[in-house]
């Protein structure tokens, strides 16, 4: 079962409005490399100059009912996991 990657209020111009992608990989770094082929320019926006997740965005890992904030790119994902890429909060 592939990993689901969802873009929530982010990068819709790059994805041309598409919100959900499916990727068969087991690390976020690999998922990102795979997605870059479908969404050119994604890495340049989602990562900062030091190849870390850009501070303007959060990557959330959803596994069942539990969600985690992801740090770094080398975390493992499992079949059926969902990754959600969201902007940081604006303050209301």
């Amino acid at each position: 079962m592939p990993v689901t990657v969802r873009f929530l209020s982010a990068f819709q111009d790059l994805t041309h409005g598409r919100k959900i992608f499916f990727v068969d990989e087991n690390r976020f770094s690999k998922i990102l490399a795979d997605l870059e082929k479908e969404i050119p320019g994604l890495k340049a926006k989602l990562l900062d100059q030091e190849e870390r997740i850009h501070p303007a965005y959060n990557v959330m890992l959803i596994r069942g009912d539990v969600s985690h904030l992801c740090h770094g790119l080398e975390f493992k994902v499992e079949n059926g996991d969902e990754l959600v890429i969201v902007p940081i909060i604006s303050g209301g």
Partner: protein
Amino acid sequence: MNGYQGKMLTVDLSNRKTFEEPIDEAFAKKYVGGVGFGIRWVYDLLQKGDDPLSPKAPLVFSTGPLASIHFLGSTGISITSKSPLLGLIGDTDMRGRMGGSLKGCGYDALVIEGKSDRPVYLRVTEGSCQILDGGHLWGKDIRQTQEAILSDAQNRNMLVTSIGVAGERLVKYANISCELQFFAGRTGAGAVMGSKNLKAIVLGGKQKTPVSDMEKVKALVKAISSKIQTDGTCDTLSKYGTWNTTGPANLNGILPTKNFQATTFSEIDKIDGDAMLHAIYTGKRTCPGCPIGCRRVVKGETPYSFSTEFGGPQYETVASMGSLLLNGNPYAIGKANELCNLYGIDTISTGVTIAFVMECFDRGVLTEKDLGFQLNWGDPEGILRMIALISLREGLGDLLAEGVKRASEKIGKGSEQWAMHVKGMEVPMHDPRGKKGMGLAYATSFKGADHESSMHDEAYQRENALPELGFTVPMARKQFEGKAGLVKCLQEYWGVMSDAVSLCKFPMIPPRPLKPGLLVDLLNAVTGWNFTMEDFLTTGERIFNLARIFNVREGITRKDDQLPKRFEETLKQGGSAGESYPKKELEKLLDEYYRLRGWNPEGIPTPETLSRLGLD
């Protein structure tokens, strides 16, 4: 004095007199401006127990020194009074142009005292203030009011700030609006203005305010603007406005839903950022000197038609008129926003009040007989009818116009348990069970539950969030540890000082580019002062403590620094499933928070603290 006009205008409506008073530099350095000036004057002019709607109670419009330049909403204004909703100090701010226009008339602040014996409006220009008959304006909504005022040739091209009908009828959460676009929503300042029979303030002046080092100001503005446009941290705010928060809030399980019974909404796909862009967005507007442009222009057609004239609903309104009421109709949210704006009431307090009534219906505490119609969760027509009833104080709306605290006390039957407020002010759209610092911020803010008084936990989950203020270690949003120090510091920096200097809070949220050091540099470049970061934060601490001792004078102690009991219940699903806000955890945080503040265990500032801050 750079950054200031050096004088304030006082209008005594009872005696129809106006007079100018000087503002000296020592006072300006001590309180800076905006909320700092406002709280100082309201504290001095009132005594314990004074009625906030009495002629004696002042209404203060105060600018900050950065209103001298047009940058990131700096031309906005703070409005301070004793809040009729809380019975405590009240302060609300709005961006836009009112502050810049008041400076243009030659004043740093406008203080309204007394009460006119008939409806009036003020026309202030450079060197002149007239108290004019406002009888023809009374009963008009804010659009009709602005049209009527601007149709007078003498008022052409002037800036109109007014109340709606809700302010006239003393709805305790009535707002004040400017140019149909900007709203000082919280704490009920509109009712204070209405209690004085003051319908509107019209400003027209172009006097420059002296600036110490304009070349340095220009360099700082250029550097900050460039970062905002290029570093990516404001991109989604620019594209979605604050709607960029709705989807993530739902994902994190902090989106108030069904009167805070839940924190995820099954119809989120209809009201998140992308959905709102698709449904009602037509463009964006900016405050003066802002490269972000977070304000939305929206339009809706029949059956929920609304105009592009008004500011579109922000996140708080999308949630308070949407998920909180189980309303997944973006057009109905747009219409509710427009109605609240026209009548002149705060969308957050209104939404929370309607949610309270819906829950009363759900639990059989209120029935069709009480309201005149059935009110079910998610009923758009019912929501719109409720807004009118409250604004006009018709039927049960008369009681609901007092706020959920008073309404629930009167209705009884256990309804106090689902009246969501802190110290009388309705809880905004961030469930503290999923962001623990926000809970402490709600409990200790001088104006009750307010989401702009301290910080948002989500911004401090990454390392080096705000190193200049010592916040380098990541703090998870759900953790209690470390939040007392974070909340205290950010109450002073983000909560108070942004309003004192007068600047939009959004570019200051980490990781955005307006860092503390740059803000102090900007203040110094405008004023010619040599404020250090310590001076800056101490000023914030002084203003915060002054607000606290105003409230202590009114009887506030630790027993009032609490959260609604509902937040002690554990969330069952969503991104904050399993989370609660136990009272014992809040008490532990309060112990630490009071110690850091130099307050005694009852939450009262010690004499040593007040002396250190120059407030003895």
